[in-house]
Structure formats: C-alpha cells, structure tokens
C-alpha cells in the first residue's frame, strides 16, 4: 500500500510543465504544487467524470502533457470511458488511479469486488497503450520518470491507503482556495487559450 501524499511528492519531482488534474488527491496536491496555475483542483464536479474531463483536455491541448489522479470508485462508474480514451489514444494523457478499495469520502464502504479487480488489466484490455500496477512506493518511484516520458495513454493503478472521511461534507476543511472559474481561467491563461 502507498500513502497518497508520499506518491504525490514523488510525482512532483517529475511533473515538469504538465497540467495536473489532482482529482481525489487534490487536498494533498494543492499545498505541494509548484505551478498552481497549471493545476485543476476541481474537487468532485460529478463522480465518474474525471477521466473523460481530463481526456477532453488532452484532446484539446495535444501539445500539453495532461496528468490525472483518478480513483477506482470514479472509474467503475464510467468504465466505458476507457474505450473512448483508448480509441482516440492521446499520447499526452497520463491516467493515475488511486485505488483505496473503498468509498473513502462517504465513510469507507467497500467498492464492488474491491480486492480482486485489476484496473491495469482492464485498461490494457480496453486498448490503452500501456498500463501498470503498483502497491509499493519504491517501485513506483523508480519507474515514475520513465512512465511520464512514455507516450500515452498510460494507466497507472496504485493501491493506496484509504483516508476515510466521516465528517459531514459541510464540516470538512476546505482545501481549495480559488473558485472553479478562477482555476479554469488560470489554466487557460497558462496554456494560452482564450479564457472561457
């Protein structure tokens, strides 16, 4: 098992100039990031959609590397998205999957078939160019730079410790400091597209 925050610290060393959609890793990524204007910490606009959203950005911005930290709960809500991503095969798309085997934000209830589902195999079967699975940070750390220099689409499934939240949603600490409009405008300005 991997600590999400530790994994993100490793990723930060190799992030380069990529656009990062931190997804479920957002609260750890926001204080770590050295380029917030190229981050999209959107929290959770609607569960199950992060992969498609990030893929859409990768399609629109082929000159930019787009990195997503998705979750297994999200991906099983919209598994068909993997086939769309594989068909269009954006070489600039890096799909990291935080697999904590539960719905951590709702109290830690089990994900269907949590311990037996192999998301790397599913992604490979859907047609991703490459897919990997890690449950050890040292191994992932050794491979991170190479993975991020490969052409995408790549899926990296990672077994991470669950960080279960039990507080009511409105009582949870806020870790996003900008509005969604501001976050989007900052990224659009950073990549040089018309704001909107």
């Amino acid at each position: 098992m991997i600590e999400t925050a530790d994994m993100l610290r490793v990723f930060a060393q190799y992030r380069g100039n990529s656009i990062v959609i931190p997804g479920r890793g957002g609260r750890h990524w926001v204080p770590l990031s050295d380029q917030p204007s190229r981050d999209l910490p959107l929290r959770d606009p609607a569960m199950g959609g992060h992969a498609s959203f990030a893929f859409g950005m990768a399609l629109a911005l082929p000159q930019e590397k787009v990195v997503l930290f998705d979750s297994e709960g999200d991906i099983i809500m919209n598994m068909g998205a993997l086939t769309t991503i594989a068909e269009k095969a954006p070489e600039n798309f890096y799909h990291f999957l935080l697999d904590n085997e539960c719905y951590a934000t709702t109290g830690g209830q089990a994900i269907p078939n949590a311990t037996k589902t192999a998301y790397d195999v599913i992604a490979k079967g859907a047609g991703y160019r490459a897919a990997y699975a890690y449950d050890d940070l040292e191994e992932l750390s050794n491979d991170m730079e190479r993975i991020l220099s490969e052409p995408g689409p790549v899926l990296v499934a990672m077994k991470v410790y669950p960080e279960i939240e039990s507080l009511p949603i409105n009582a949870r600490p806020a870790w996003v400091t900008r509005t969604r409009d501001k976050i989007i405008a900052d990224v659009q300005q950073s990549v040089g597209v018309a704001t909107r």
Partner: protein
Amino acid sequence: MVNQPGKLTPQAVLGEMLKNEVTHVVCLPDSETNWLYMLMEKEPSLDLVRVAREGQAISTASGISVGGKKPVVLIQNTGLMESGDSIRGWGMGLNRPLVLIVGYRGWTRKGVTPDTAAVYTERFLNAFNIDYYLVESDDDVSRISLAFDEAKKKNQPVAVLIGVEYES
C-alpha cells in the same frame, strides 16, 4: 449547401456546426442521427469522439471546452436524461458553454406520444433550467446558431431538440 424547406437534412445541421466553428463532436450514435453521423465522418475539420454513455459525453466536452476548443454534444433524449448529474457538475457547475444537440425521440405534433422519452424531455430540461430550441426542418436550423450564441453569452449548456428524423 442548399437548405430544403419542410425537410430536415443532415447537410443543413452539419452546415450550422461548421458555421459555428465546431472542432469536436462528442457523440453516441442513434438511429435518427445516422445520416448526420455518416456526413460528419467525412468532414475533415471535425474530430468525432465516440462515447459509450451520454454522461461521459458531457464531461468529455467540458474538458475539450476548458482546453480552448469548441465541442458539440450529439445524443438522444434518453441519454440526455442519463446525463443529469454530469450536466449538473461538469457542464453547469464549470460554467461551460456547451451546445447539446439532442434527438427528440417520440416527439410528435399529432395526438399524444406514447413514448415516455419524449414525455419527459422538456420537463427534464426545464427542471435543470436549460434553455432549448426545437428544430424540425431546414427552416429551423438557424436556431442552432442561436443556441451557440446563447451558450456563449450565459456560459451554460443550451439544448437543441431535433424533432424529426433526417432526410438524406
């Protein structure tokens, strides 16, 4: 490209997409849109993105839009209803000016429709406060441009309901 009054041709709808400088069509094909689909596949300026479920179309289009390109979503009304949470979060929540071209399955001006897909379509759009335009022939296709203008002005999704099957 000459519009044909009284009929809805896929050429006229495609013409509106090109006029509005659409870059990506995020779509899930249905029987009503097959003629349009065949035309779009031959249009080099359009990138067709085939999705497996309609909610996926909304989040994909939202990402394309944030990336500075101009997508249109092409789905059926059945899938529109499936997309509710995605429209709420990825479309409306991120203030995306998305145009949704929706096949209005079951729509009729004569008698009562037995198709619940049609019965609930406008109720669904009204519940989400999404403005919409009805297109039933080439005479109406300029409404697609109105939808693009309105989406841009409001930074919100706007729907175009295609009320008839295309004639080739």
